[in-house]
């Protein structure tokens, strides 16, 4: 697990460096799995797995960096909600296409909640969110065996403020390449 975290940390550094090279990105780093890069990636609407700029040429296809930069590693949820919004579905559709293009990759979906809930309820809510993402990927043709889920409840916020801006970043489902 320590090794795994170390790799995640390295990938985070790599992702942030690359994002900085591209354009400005939301500064909510601290997440173990890609920082705020996803919102930019999803906002760009890029659905291709090819390099979108010269600085991404060294990204390994099928890697976490590839997922973060070119697909979007995360979807966001409303308060106490676990249904996928239209935007979340678009991201998940790109993720499904990406998983099909990289058939050997397996992933975990991390479900997270904001701080405005009790601990155990949020663990259950995070599991609901992670499963909602997984189930949608499966309906899009991804094998269920390639997607595991894990809930972190409110234990791993990516944004630390006590306001809606932070909370909306923390209510998330994050795809993490195994």
């Amino acid at each position: 697990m320590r090794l795994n975290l170390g790799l995640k940390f390295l990938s985070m550094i790599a992702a942030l460096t690359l994002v900085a090279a591209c354009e400005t990105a939301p500064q909510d780093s601290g997440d173990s799995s890609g920082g705020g890069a996803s919102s930019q990636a999803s906002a760009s609407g890029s659905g291709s797995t090819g390099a979108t700029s010269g600085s991404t040429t060294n990204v390994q296809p099928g890697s976490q960096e590839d997922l973060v930069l070119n697909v979007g590693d995360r979807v966001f949820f409303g308060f106490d909600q676990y249904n996928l919004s239209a935007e979340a579905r678009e991201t998940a559709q790109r993720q499904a296409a990406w998983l099909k293009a990289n058939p050997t990759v397996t992933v975990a979906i991390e479900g997270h909640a904001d701080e405005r809930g009790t601990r155990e309820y949020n663990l259950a809510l995070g599991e609901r969110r992670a499963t909602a993402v997984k189930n949608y990927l499966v309906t899009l043709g991804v094998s269920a065996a390639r997607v595991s889920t894990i809930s972190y409840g409110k234990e791993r916020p990516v944004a630390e403020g006590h306001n809606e801006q932070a909370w909306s970043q923390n209510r998330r489902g994050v795809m993490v390449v195994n």
Partner: protein
Amino acid sequence: MMAVGKRMATGIKQVVFLMVALFLITGAARAELVIDITQGNIKPLPVAISDFAGKSEATAIVGQKIADVVRADLERSGLFKIIDKRAFLQQISDIQTIPVFSNWRKINAQALTNGIVTALPDGRIEIQFRLWDVFSEQYLTGHKLSTQPTNWRRLGHKVADYIYERLTGESGYFDTRVVYVSESGPASRRVKRLAIMDQDGARHQFLTDGSNLVLTPRFSPSQQVITYLSYFNNRPRVYLLDIDTGQQEVLGEFPGMTFAPRFSPSGNQVVMSMSENGNSDIYIMDLRTRAVKRLTSHPGIDTGPSFSPDGKQITFESDRGGRQQLYVMNVDGSNQKRISFGRGNYGTPVWSPRGDLIAFTKLTGGKFSIGVMRTDGSQERILTEGFHNEGPSWAPNGRVLVFFRQIPGKNQQDQDKVRLWSIDLTGYNEREIITPRDGSDPAWSPLIPDGR
């Protein structure tokens, strides 16, 4: 597994003193000295706790320290005002001495405790103490206790429990411990460790090293065992931890996340949630046979189960009605009924050890409160409200709750504080329990058995 906590050589032995004959004569017509602790914000009872005397310098020093523990326990309860010992007009150096009550009335002491410490030939220390009603000049109680010298703090807690019991009519709660989650580091990479300490914060020790995320520890009512959630190997599951041996064990082999564990009153079962395909329901496991039974089966989130002290019912939280609310069911899962109907969300129900109340966390208007209600949901009372108060746990006498409180920092440099607090059932006497680092998810132990 589940090795019975081994009897330690530090066990406390006790002998009850009956000195009825000696003091029946004096002041028999006076009213008994009793504190009614059901009323909030009562005027604390002024009491004098003498340093326990000792024949040698060593025992005299221990006697002072034991008296300090007694004073601190009683003071923190909010029910007693401790009279400064520098005001005392009499030093009682012998346990056979009857106090000069007029000297204690002059400093307005309502009750007086004195005691002695003796070094026993086998290396243990023994204390004797007396509790007196100063105004009626009556002997109220007295005991003799012995233990290993390193265990002296427990002698103080035991004495405080005897005094509390005699003067309130309720059982004490000072000879207890609190297990909790010690926290450090930034929120996004918070390091969490199980830690245990006496209820006053003393004798603090870590139980896990922080390499795995751990949450929600809870005591066994009958053994030195804790059940909790660990993310060991990135698989969030319910574990058992033997406090004495440090041995950890995953509880059962479940396909999904198990969480929110609590022991049954007998200690023979653990009730918990398990998530399957994203849905959380409540299950019960018998620790002897490892047989598992499903208690709820509903597409809503069912979690936070807590037994009634008679073992016949379980309270839990569910959002099956659209919002997170409190429910009660029979221990076999039958007769599930909602008990909370207020605005906002209700979670973390915990049944009082007295059986009469359920404590909870309430989320409403952007605030997190700690409250109590009767077990049918009536007579809801909020004890404390603020930015974030969560996760109450009862003292074994059902009169005091411990919970955690997060206070946001004022700016980037001023970090959030997450701390443990206790509060009286009346809603008064909020006290922080000082911990080395931030702390959350406290759980109060039962009274520590004699012999340990």
